[in-house]
């Protein structure tokens, strides 16, 4: 664990997290409180541009991401909840760091400074930094969990020198007393926005992913992305559906959160029977 100042973060939740997956936001705030991470929501943040702005007008996406960077305080790392927002913010920041003229142009546009040294990290990375291997808790009672990364670990080549978090969800889960099940489609994309326009296609992909988890003996899935969680829940048409947890939920549960009842009630695949059966929920 590092010194106290390094545990202060600006927090960028992203559009999905504040609405669709309100429960992951709550559980994240809870988990961070327990872990001693102090989050301060980025004042008046906006959408990072998402896939849509970057597809039809990359410059618009770049500007949208740059505004968020201009809002961040330079001396505290920016903690991002959504892996896709993370990529967009990081890539934009990398361009602004390397290109001084572009950075100055953005600073003039927003009338705010943009720090070239701003650290942008994902929630998972913040947890890994705390050294979860030493926690040695057994709160999850041997729950068989498939860590589902989706496209989280894949990145644009410009970011290939960033740290790589393959296997870290497993490590954290194991430290919390769960049994990670990895011989399944852990890195298959969930379908992203195609879920809205091509449900048939995404249903087929999601079913393959969940089926692989069932075959591998997993009882539930854990993702680090709110969109993956939603797609895996709404597009699964298999008879045997598995509950999908956001990483922050399972973390907060293992860290003995209190208000989980209201989170789990919002799931489209109810995880409560499984948790009650395992004695994790009363």
């Amino acid at each position: 664990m590092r010194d106290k100042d390094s545990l202060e973060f600006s927090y960028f939740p992203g559009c999905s997290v504040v609405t669709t997956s309100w429960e992951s936001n709550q559980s994240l705030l809870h988990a961070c409180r327990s872990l001693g991470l102090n989050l301060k929501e980025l004042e008046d943040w906006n959408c990072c541009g998402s896939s849509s702005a970057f597809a039809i007008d990359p410059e618009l996406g770049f500007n949208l991401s740059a505004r968020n960077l201009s809002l961040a305080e330079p001396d505290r790392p920016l903690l991002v909840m959504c892996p896709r927002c993370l990529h967009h913010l990081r890539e934009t920041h990398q361009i602004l760091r390397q290109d001084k003229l572009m950075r100055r142009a953005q600073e003039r546009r927003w009338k705010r400074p943009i720090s070239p040294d701003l650290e942008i990290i994902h929630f998972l990375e913040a947890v890994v930094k705390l050294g979860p291997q030493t926690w040695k808790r057994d709160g999850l009672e041997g729950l068989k969990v498939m860590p589902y990364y989706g496209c989280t670990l894949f990145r644009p080549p410009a970011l290939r020198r960033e740290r790589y978090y393959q296997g870290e969800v497993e490590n954290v889960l194991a430290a919390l007393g769960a049994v990670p099940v990895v011989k399944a489609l852990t890195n298959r994309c969930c379908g992203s926005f195609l879920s809205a326009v091509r449900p048939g296609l995404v249903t087929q992909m999601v079913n393959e992913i969940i089926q692989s988890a069932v075959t591998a003996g997993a009882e539930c899935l854990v993702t680090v992305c709110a969109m993956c969680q939603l797609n895996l829940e709404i597009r699964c048409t298999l008879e045997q559906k598995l509950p999908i947890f956001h990483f922050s939920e399972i973390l907060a549960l293992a860290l003995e959160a209190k208000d989980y009842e209201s989170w789990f009630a919002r799931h489209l695949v109810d995880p409560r029977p499984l948790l009650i059966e395992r004695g994790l929920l009363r």
Partner: protein
Amino acid sequence: MLNEAKLIITDKKDPLEQIWQIGTDSLFGPKIIEVDALDRDFAEEVERRSHAGLRRCYFCRSCGNGCPFVTAMDVPPYAVMRMVHYGLREEALSTRTIWICVNCHTCASQCPMAIDIAAMMNTLCHMALEERVPVPTPDILKFHLEVVRSIERHGRTHKLGIMLRLKLLTGEWFKDVDVGLKMLSKRKLDLRPSRIRALKEIHRLFLPYWRVVKP
């Protein structure tokens, strides 16, 4: 490039020799390319706008093998890459592939030459719109436009608003209603959008700068 171009130039009387295949026969069938109609600057233009590094491609086809959406595409990602290399401007800009791509970067992580294939796809989408090439997947374009309009309106995306406007546009009111209702009942679709305060800062991005100048 030059050697390959020579391969394509053949005696026009013999149709078999005019044939040049972009990918494999079974996937695309034979395709005749008229060398005179190629846009020689296309690859350079795409590279300058996307910084994808597409000159490094040696056509190993790893991107197509890993792509989870390849079944929904008309040609695999490597074929788009080839079209860009050859200067088949219209063909590349009118593929479904560029619109199906969700930027999951599976291809890029498998690419031995670290080419940013998703950036190339985004650039091609942008160019297709600029040049008013008919979009083969109007539903996906409508979705993107609605998301961007939602950002313009609220500074953030509002899922319920986007879905309702999409339904209005497509007229498919009953498609996916069960999922929508389930999400509503679980309060996963907020009725009211989450808005930013400094909306002016966002609106400025959607207008030419002189439109917002006040004398």
